[in-house]
């Protein structure tokens, strides 16, 4: 602190000997400094008058170097028109200049006027300068219970290369202050400290003042924020924001007691902030809030048709010097942000972060365009570093073009829209689905080809021939089995006819059933003969042949027994013999039939297994 004061003193000494710069003079300067948050906003209203003879087309603004390095945002605007029509304000271009013969340790910004200011004319200029890191916590370390105090330095007089006729300075703060530098005409009232009016001060007048005030606003500083805006022409703009946040105020020292914090959070944790509010576009959806170890459950979302507010709470209350990092993501409907005119598409989206009053030390905005975009150009309303890279994502062939914009010292005033123009053919949309479809198609085609092709190297090798024969044998055995099964079905029919007989006593029907069964069985045995011969001729069937033959034999036997049983039962019915007699006569046959059937079943199973 003391060092800086010395600097300022030297500066003011140097300034005293500097010459007046030009014929311009400032007839009235009104400055208002807003110290209510951790971003310092200085609004100056300058009434510029040309006292010389030559028309002047630029106005110079001077800032001490110590301040200039913290300037985040600077605009100058003038009010067009006179009298009643003065409503539209026009912002003027500003650039950094290095005029000769000027005192050292000053940074110059030149405001170019739209039209030169000729003799005797005057103009009102509104200059808004936004500074970060200008409020310095003092003391730099506080305990949990202390309130946070900050110091702010400025000059009571407007630092200008021009003569200032009348000027005043108003400092607005949150209401509590420790001290302020007392000069003549300075007074404090309520939440304001006023200096001036001072009259007829020469150019480069400088009088350092220091204001020591209480500021418990959240000093949320994002050391790095990476915003990734990914466009999908299927209808979504996905925004992912990676925050690396620190409480930039006075560092906490000593113990942190949860007890004290919970009992009286506004006294024993006054300097801490526990939540931040992000203002998202009204149609944001699929919002998430997480960090590297998973979802953070302390968040809240509400909104209406004009906005959506996401209240996020870091995992722990943020005290001075504490850090955290998290990720916010949300999807936006494409048609709200992507527009098309004359074959050129342009994305129109905000540049800064949606959380209010966060200073971003290093903001990187990445706009990921869909694969196949070309002729990319970016228009940003302020100077940014810009380059392009590619990102390989799902199903990408060459990667998606990414426009990267980097800017340091970003304040909420930078939350303006910027545009990315590019050309994109709608047919490219179909590239990925087509790729998938063709991929699967090729896979299936390959499968089909593999199944149908014969990859055997030597067609005459024994293994190959054996395999062919074995396939043949299997087919034949299958045929045999089919025939046997059909025989078994016919056996079933015979049994059924017997049951019908027992129920209805219709002997004729039973006989006809038997006849038909007989004939079909004969046909089947005819069918069986060539198949069996084929099987006997095959050398591969040696193993399976005996089983098959046994099966056929057993089946035939079974057939005979069944016929016997059938004829016996029918006979008995014809002779009208009693139930018991029938039973006695059939019993022995039935036993054999059951045994045979069991054997046939077993054989069938065995053959199946082979």
């Amino acid at each position: 602190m003391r060092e800086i004061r010395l600097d300022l003193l030297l500066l003011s000494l140097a300034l005293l000997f500097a010459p007046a710069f030009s014929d311009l003079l400032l007839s009235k300067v009104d400055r208002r400094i807003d110290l209510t948050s951790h971003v310092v906003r200085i609004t100056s209203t300058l009434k510029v008058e040309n006292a010389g003879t030559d028309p002047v087309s630029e106005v110079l603004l001077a800032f001490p170097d110590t301040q200039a390095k913290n300037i985040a945002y600077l605009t100058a605007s003038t009010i067009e028109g006179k009298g009643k029509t003065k409503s539209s304000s026009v912002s003027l271009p500003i650039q950094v200049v290095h005029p000769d013969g000027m005192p050292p340790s000053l940074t110059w910004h030149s405001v170019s006027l739209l039209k030169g200011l000729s003799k005797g004319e005057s103009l009102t200029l509104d200059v808004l300068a936004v500074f970060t890191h200008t409020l310095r916590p003092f003391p730099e370390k506080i305990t949990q219970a202390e309130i946070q105090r900050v110091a702010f330095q400025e000059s009571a007089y407007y630092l200008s290369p021009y003569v200032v006729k009348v000027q005043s300075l108003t400092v607005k703060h949150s209401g509590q202050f420790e001290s302020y530098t007392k000069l003549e005409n300075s007074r404090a009232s309520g939440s304001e400290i006023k200096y001036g009016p001072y009259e007829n001060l020469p150019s480069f007048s400088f009088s350092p003042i220091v204001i020591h005030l209480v500021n418990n606003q959240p000093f949320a500083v994002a050391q790095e924020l990476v915003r990734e805006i990914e466009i999908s022409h299927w209808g979504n703009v996905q925004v992912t924001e990676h925050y690396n946040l620190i409480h930039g105020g006075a560092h906490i020292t000593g113990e942190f007691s949860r007890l004290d914090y919970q009992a009286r959070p506004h006294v024993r944790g006054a300097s801490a902030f526990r939540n931040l509010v992000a203002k998202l576009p009204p149609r944001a959806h699929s919002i998430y809030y997480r960090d590297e170890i998973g979802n953070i459950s302390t968040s809240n979302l509400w909104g209406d048709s004009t906005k959506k507010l996401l209240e996020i709470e870091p995992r722990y209350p943020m005290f001075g010097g504490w850090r955290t990092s998290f990720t916010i993501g949300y999807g936006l409907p494409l048609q709200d942000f992507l527009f098309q005119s004359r074959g050129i598409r342009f994305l129109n989206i905000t540049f800064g972060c949606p959380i209010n009053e966060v200073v971003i030390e290093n903001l990187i905005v990445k706009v990921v365009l869909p694969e196949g975009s070309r002729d990319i150009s970016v228009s940003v309303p302020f100077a940014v570093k810009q380059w392009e890279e590619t990102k390989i994502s799902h199903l990408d062939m060459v990667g998606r073009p990414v426009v990267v914009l980097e800017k340091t010292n970003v304040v909420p005033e930078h939350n303006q829209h910027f545009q990315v123009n590019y050309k994109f053919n709608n047919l490219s949309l179909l590239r990925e689905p087509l790729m998938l479809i063709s991929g699967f198609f090729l896979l299936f085609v390959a499968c089909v080809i593999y199944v149908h092709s014969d990859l055997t190297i030597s067609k005459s090798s024994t293994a190959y021939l054996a395999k062919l024969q074995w396939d043949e044998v299997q087919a034949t055995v299958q045929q045999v089995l089919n025939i046997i099964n059909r025989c078994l079905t016919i056996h079933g029919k015979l049994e059924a006819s017997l049951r019908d007989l027992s129920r209805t006593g219709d002997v004729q029907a039973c006989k006809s059933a038997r006849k038909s069964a007989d004939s079909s069985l004969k046909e089947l045995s005819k069918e069986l003969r060539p198949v069996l011969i084929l099987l006997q001729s095959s050398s591969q069937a040696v193993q399976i042949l005996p089983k098959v033959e046994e099966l056929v034999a057993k089946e035939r036997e079974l057939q005979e027994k069944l016929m016997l049983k059938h004829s016996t039962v029918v006979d008995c019915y014809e002779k009208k013999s009693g139930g018991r007699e029938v039973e006695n006569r059939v019993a022995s046959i039935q036993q054999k039939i059951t045994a045979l059937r069991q054997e046939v079943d077993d054989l069938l199973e065995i053959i199946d297994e082979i």
Partner: protein
Amino acid sequence: MTSEHFASFLVFIFIHVVAFAYYIKGLLSPKMFKVAVTLVASVGMVLCCAVVAVLIAMVASSPTKGWSGRSLSLLDPTYASKYIPIIASVSEHQPPTWPSYFMDINVLAFLVPAGITACFLPLSDASSFVILYIVTSVYFSGVMVRLMLVLAPAACILSGIALSEAFDVFTGSIKFQLPGISRNSQIDVRDTSSAGVVTQDDGVKTDKNEESLKERPSKKNKKKERENAEKALIKPLLEKRLLVLPLEASVISLLLLVLLGAFYVVHCVWAAAEAYSAPSIVLTSHTNNGLHVFDDFREAYAWLSHNTEVDDKVASWWDYGYQTTAMANRTVIVDNNTWNNTHIATVGTAMSSPEKAAWEIFHSLDVKYVLVVFGGLVGYPSDDINKFLWMVRIGGGVFPHIKEPDYLRDGQYRIDSQATPTMLNCLMYKLCYYRFVETDGQGFDRVRKTEIGKKHFKLTHFEEVFTTHHWMVRLYKLKPPKNRIRGKTKKSKTVCVINKASSTTSSKGSGKRNPWQ
């Protein structure tokens, strides 16, 4: 490698030897093979004997015969609690309780005996294997809760067998007794005709065994059936004797079984969702206002990872070791790898020592932060105070000056006013209950359901740096060594702070000089 691996290795080697022998047998002629066998057998026996002798010597040289503590405690369930407290301290190494069986395998617990009986009915190779499997796994699961995992597949197999048998019987008896439905298919017709005969002797028997209440109506049923069958005049004999139950009984039992299965599915889904896959790191409770989330662990780990130096070391009980490493990205002193018992014992000793001794231990380990888990405010039962006795036991196992009886009053573990002074002065007690009394004025611990014994005390060698929202995780920092020596100056400083706090905040800070005045 420990002795318990021998069995599997030997089986592995044996299988390979057999396979190799068969291969050789295929290559050589029988005569040559005999020669080779004698040659290899004689040489192999000598080699084997040598290897076995070496192995036996090695095994015999170790006090536990080469068995690891975990497997020894399998064979002798009391082994771990006697000799290796660190194994016994793990909750999943405890013997399970009956409710835990019911919770984990639910209805399977009742189906398994039926499955075993079903396995015995035709005792084949496969079913005897299953029986052996279930018997051993039941024994193992009885020793340790975690071996419920071994029991689960065996129980599933056996209950499957039981259910399938039951379904077989019930559906079979329904099929036999519904001839109207199955008349068309002639195989069934044959069976139905035979069913009448069998039901006479068998059905009644099974009825007596299983459902005596249903006996009467079923008997009537049977009689009708018998008459039908006699009319049919076909009484084929069946070799297989079928078990047939009355129709109503089997339908109802079938329905009940399906219902049982359905409830089991519901239970399984519930258990998988609530008990098995609910993360133990994020706790939830259902209150009137909805779900309340206790995310304290991640809060503390996130704080550690963002607000401490990268090379700071964190001491905590070993349960939180891997979590701290993974989520907070900080080096820990002990973690869930419990091979190194001494290290864990060191931390256990520090936790059960008085503040100064603990500080010295931690300082020698280059520890910056100490993490304790405290559930007393919200009633989270698996906190460090409940685990503390194990810290004492494990610490005492290596450092004999820590004695378990010092922490117990008449054999009881308590933290109220009856607790022993050693308990009330140990580091764990102090770190957990530091300023706890100021929350409600009495210091009522919701886990132990009692007021704490020592309520007002100050920490001299540690300072609280972070406590999570529900006080579940408390982090303390070791004070730098110079603070120990500077006893007097410290006192004067605190006085100064008190003075400052008493002067109102609106006036200018009295203690410090403002350079701009």
